[in-house]
């Protein structure tokens, strides 16, 4: 975090950055952490499954506006879902990741979409569907068209990426950021605040919702 703030100070001091909360969702080992790692460190390595969730911040500048993305990288593993749900609330954007070489992960991504649909109004959240691992073209199980068709039917953004080959990763995040900015301008800049950590009302609600999964 220090690192990110170190290299991109909000240049326009007159203007506080927009702060957006972005969650990475998807089944395990589709490459959520790798996407985040590529974005933040511009590197790729084999990494172990995420424990719980990991939090990163990334500063961005887009069309003259400063943005701060607070990225929640969630574990794909079932056992951590309840903890991740906590951080899913209040999200401005969701990145639904699937592995193009794993049909099952595509179905899971669709299920994640349904969960989001239950929690959010369509205008509340920007959702992008990301088919990761285009480097595994040979063992592809989900075609580009299938992904696109699902995204279009639900009005989601869509992109195929490869965190390994650094193909369209930054583009995916920029697409999200651009859409967030566009909506923000329509709504008149509510997100422009220094740091909106936990929404206390949400916290109160979280108490009541008992998550009994493991």
């Amino acid at each position, binding site marked *: 975090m220090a690192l990110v703030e170190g290299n991109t100070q909000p240049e326009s001091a007159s203007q506080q950055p927009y702060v957006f909360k972005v969650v990475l969702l998807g089944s395990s080992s589709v490459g959520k952490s790798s996407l985040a790692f590529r974005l933040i460190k511009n590197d790729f390595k084999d*990494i*172990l*499954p995420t*424990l*719980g969730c990991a939090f990163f911040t990334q500063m961005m500048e887009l069309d003259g506006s400063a943005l701060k993305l607070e990225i929640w990288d969630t574990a794909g593993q*079932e*056992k951590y879902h309840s903890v991740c749900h906590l951080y899913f609330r209040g999200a401005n954007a969701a990145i639904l990741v699937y592995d193009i070489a794993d049909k099952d992960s595509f179905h899971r991504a669709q299920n994640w979409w349904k969960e989001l649909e239950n929690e959010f109004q369509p205008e509340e959240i920007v959702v992008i569907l990301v088919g990761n691992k285009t480097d595994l073209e040979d063992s592809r199980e989900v075609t580009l068209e299938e992904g696109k068709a699902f995204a279009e039917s639900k009005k989601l953004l869509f992109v195929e990426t490869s965190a390994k080959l650094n193909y369209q990763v930054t583009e995916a995040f920029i697409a999200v950021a651009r859409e967030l900015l566009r909506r923000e301008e329509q709504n008149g800049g509510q997100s422009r605040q220094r740091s909106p950590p936990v929404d206390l009302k949400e916290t109160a609600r979280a108490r009541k919702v008992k998550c009994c999964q493991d």
Partner: protein
Amino acid sequence: MTAPWPARSGTGLSWPHLLPLHQGHSGRQAGWRKLQALKLCLLPKPRAAEMEARGGACGGSAPAPEAPSDSARPFGVASDEEPSGGPGSQESCGPPRADEEVQGALPGPEEGAPTHLGVHELSGQTSLDKKYNRGTKDSGKPGKMSGTGDTSQRGDLPTPGPRDDEDVTAEGWRSRRKHVFVLSEAGKPIYSRYGNEEALSATMGVMMALVSFIQSGDNAIRSIYSDDRTLVFLQQGPLVLVAVSRTPQSAAQLRCELLGVHAQIVSVLTRAGVARVFERQRSYDLRRLLAGSERILDSLLDGAEREPGFLLGAVRCLPLPAPFRDSLGALLQRATAPSLAFSILAAGRHLVTAAQERAVLEDCRLDPADLHLLLNLVGASSAFRAGEVWAPVCLPRFNPDGFFYAYVSYLGDNTDYAICLVLLSTDREAFHALAGCKRIVEEGLQALGASRVLAGGGVGLPSYGVSAVGAPDLRHFLYKPFDVPDNYRQLPQFTSPEMEGPYASECERQRLFDLYYHLHGRLHSPSRPLRLIYHVAEKETLLAWVTPKFELYACFNPLVTKSGAIHAVTKLLRWVKREEDRLFIRYPPKYSTAPVRHGPNRTDSALENGL
């Protein structure tokens, strides 16, 4: 206690030995024949028939049932079934013994069995070393060393896949030094250290058959000894754990390791969580929940082979100047938030300092076994050292049924030094509060010039070589003090120098560890614990010594004389005394957090926070 059942002539099979044996065995012979057939599959290479008579020797404690409190023992301490095994309890309730066991003392009855390392110190040269020689020779075989080779590789580059690719029918798989299996009561494979669990379902089925067959007679299988392998069975709730080992570890030590594996599973899912899924569905495939945790278990087992902390039930501290450590402690005391229970600064598996909430401390101190599990979990999951991790973690010794919420973040530029901050909270919404604590710690570290102090050593860790002691005959040692101030609340700690010189290579290091394991097993033997062992091995001479003040394992060059060794030990003890402020955390910091909402206490952290 000899086997009441006859060995089938000419099969050359070994027999399982069962504890406790309080049931008659007549009329079971048909069953045993079946077992015999099963064992063929279990033991890859049946050797000459040998009935392990060891259980007979510990007859006094034999019927001791596998009490549930069993699981509450630190798994580094091999005192599973012995009445007076704990080093602390020895002088009070142990049988009267000479301070030094004279070389060539008659072997205890338990050592009569040739299957077990039948060592008596006088002839130690021959019998023990033959055994170890075989070990080293074996190391040339692809099977054995590929194990360790594999793991180090895995440590550096955890690639998914290869771990499961191993052919479980191959000789290489069979000749692994140690196998660990976890299965459910329904016989479903959950984890295998090597090879794919799926491919092993038949073998695991056999294991479960063994377990349930013995169970049907109101008994519990504990271990099987064959010529060169020890099989240990452990049942923990709905899980069955099995170790098949060619190492010189005693069954008690293996059992502790299995308890450790179980505890690591619990640390991810909680005991209640595991019980719940199996209550719902007996045939549940726990791998679904454990997905991704296999590598955490792998790294735990690797750690047990290379970190003496597991054996000693203690934590290794990073040697640091006392004032610097104190200021780090003060920093942790300053960076608190409501609901914070533990703050830990660690470098790899070395503890830098740890602070604990006062109220929590009243309740329970942080257990070294829990800390091992935690650091293993953190280490195994944070190959990706950017960002801040927030995850539910259970500390089984503290409370096996509840979660803490762990905030994990690496501090500083991790190319300099990889120091990791772990904060445990009872509040699952506390992420942002703890992120605030981290910022305080980070700023404090900068102000202290931590990177300069911590980056002193080679790999970014200040460590020391054995030459620092100034005893030329001494090659390596493990020292665990008992006389720390505030002892009952202290985290057990130990210190040891870097592995250098003759032990720099992986295979020699392994050999030294095997010797330590062996000596530890003898010191803490269930039937005849010892206080002092002077052991002349082929390539080195070792001394193991436990007193009310410390436990010490020292390794000397092979030509050392007894008086030379004693001289070196005296020197070592003096050196440790002089350096203890640097080597150990003498006064662990404490803090109080205002009891807001969740008063951090044992019961509270249980279900309230359960996912």
